[in-house]
């Protein structure tokens, strides 16, 4: 069993078939959040355009700046969440969490379950509307000390949390956290 499972890891790590994707409604959540950000970008541009409306030697015709920002931001808001959702995938395996994400920068991460220090399920205002939860896994690592899986149905996030908790409680090896 020992060697076979150890060998299986390699295949596991590379295999693409068991990857679970995020709940599709996370796209809407991301879109809303980005829209808020885009509005903050758009308003100053609009303000600038309005103040330049009656100035004779404006270097830009009216509406170009705010229009560009508006178009760019909408494309970003519409396309980016989809791309991000497509890039996201995770799998909970008997001894580890496997995560891959990133649109421009692909990141693949393995968090061994026995390295988890504690684990939270959190939810912000928008996520609550869609009854989504976010799984936050804390490890002692320095750069990736918080590993976040967003956009899980709340019940599923809680289920994963409980699974991991049970694994840690049943771990026969007791050792110092660090």
């Amino acid at each position, binding site marked *: 069993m020992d060697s076979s499972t150890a060998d299986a*890891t390699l295949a596991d790590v590379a295999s693409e078939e068991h*990857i679970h994707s995020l709940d599709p409604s996370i796209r809407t959540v991301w879109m809303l959040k980005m829209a808020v950000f885009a509005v903050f970008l758009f308003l100053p541009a609009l303000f600038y355009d309005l103040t330049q409306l009656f100035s004779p030697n404006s270097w830009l015709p009216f509406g170009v700046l705010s229009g560009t920002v508006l178009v760019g931001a909408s494309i970003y808001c519409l396309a980016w969440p989809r791309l991000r959702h497509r890039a996201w995938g995770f799998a909970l395996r008997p001894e580890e969490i496997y995560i891959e994400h990133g649109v421009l920068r692909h990141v693949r991460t393995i968090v061994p379950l026995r390295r988890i220090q504690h684990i939270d399920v959190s939810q912000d205002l928008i996520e609550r509307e869609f009854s989504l939860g976010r799984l936050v896994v804390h490890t002692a690592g320095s750069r*990736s000390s918080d*590993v976040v899986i967003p956009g899980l149905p709340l019940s599923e996030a809680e289920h994963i949390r409980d699974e*991991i908790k049970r694994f840690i409680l049943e771990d*026969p090896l007791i050792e110092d956290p660090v």
Partner: protein
Amino acid sequence: MPSPPPEPDPSAQDPSDDAGTAPADESASTPSEDAPSPDPSSSTLGAIREPQRLHPLTLLLRVGASLPALLIVLFPLLQNPNSSEHVVSIVLTVLYGVFALPAILLQYFRFSYRITPKQIVIQSGVFNRKNRSIPIERVQNIQIEQNLVARLFGIAKVQIETAGSTSTEGSLEYVQLESAQEIRRIVRSFQHRTAEGEAEAEQEEPTAETLFDMPLRRVLLSGAFRFSLLYLAVIFSVLQLFDPEALADQLMLSRSVMDRIGEAVLSNPALAIIATIVVAIILGWISGIVVHLARYYGFQLWLEGDKLRTRRGLFTVKEGTIPLKKVQALILRTNPFMCAFGWYELKVQTVGLDVDEQGHRVIAPFAKTDRILALANRVRPLDLPEAFGRVSRLTIRRRFFRYTAVLTIMLAPAIYFWPATWIHPGGVAFPWWGFGLVPFLLGWALLQYRNHGYATQDDGFYIRRGVVSHYLWLIPVEKFHVFSATASIFQRRLDLKTLFVDTAGAATFAYPEVIDLPADEADAQFGTLYTQFKTLYRNRIEEATGDPDTRLDVEDRPRLPTGPLAD
């Protein structure tokens, strides 16, 4: 209250002396004579059950520390004592007397600490009472620090650090030096008890063995090898506060020879530039020596059972412990100068200790290769790989492009805005000449490639990196935390990946990362490293329980997407 016994003689605090007496006291196993109120009913060694105050001199030092603020308040008054428009200053001074001084007093009297066999309790706060208890078994390090003033009065600052925290958990500022050492001894003896049971606790602590020390000559030498412009920058920024020209003028006037040299230099711009560089190098070199002397004077490292203890410093003496188990990684560091003469620095990566050093603790600041390796072997068996795997050659190209792009971005605005009246050597704006650096960038990229390597061995992951500072990390398998492989959009075009094994307490600036591995190789390494980790733990579990697996039933094991809720 004990009166402060002045101990101006530094030799009275000789580390070897203190290390030698510690085990002797331990073996006596009687309630320590230093503990002010030994509780006869308690069988434990020297628990400090009565709440203790800090050393009375703390009061004086705190008032002293608050004086600069008073001076700032009084500054207008002092500058122009005859003016009558300093009511504000006077009022503030009175307020200082009414509020700040009593606050210091109150703080002092409301602060207390005690040590029970289970925990260290620190009570503090004037209005908000804080009652902090630190469980003894969580204490990882007790650091005793003495700055110059503290050494004059024989008092010390005790910092208590725990496993989970990234900063100091409790700080006793100041207690008498003897009490500080007593606290450390008591905590350690309690820890032994909780960890190994009563029987073990009876055994006397293993004697301290000095592993490494640095005579003065060595410290000076190590400083000489550590040329750093950083210190220079600090010096110049401090000089900014004064009037450098007036200072220089005075120097120049006082010496007519200097005056002539100065004139000759200033008349020729090329000479001026060279002179500036030479002066900067000399200053940087000297400041490096001075900084090293202050930091590592009297450096000593000794092994006590399963703990390393270090002590160092010229003005501020720092004393700390590093449990061997808590060493997260070994770091060998050198620079081209040191390397040419075979000198190395050995550091260990720990968690939550000495945050000012980014989790790195220096174990040997400066020693020859074989000495360093022998020392490293005492901390953790180390098996230096004969050959390091190289990353992809494409990394040279990638780095070169990146550096050139950065250079262009920096120079472009300068070229665009360069006024026509400023110098135009060779008929072009001066910043254009910045592109003369491009060949150097290529060389830099090449050096980075040549110095970058990795090796996976049974004992851990070895990573080598750096041009100005050569780093070699050993990350033991049992200290692997999170594994990640990343590929940026540019890396994907060239089919490259970056591999990173996270450890606890890794620095944010220079960390072990294998950049630009060929993607398939990175994936293979990623798998190998994780398999190593998994196998190690399987073996450990098997050793402990006889079965290499978790106790969970097969269908109870965490698994998704095939879990019940996934569809």
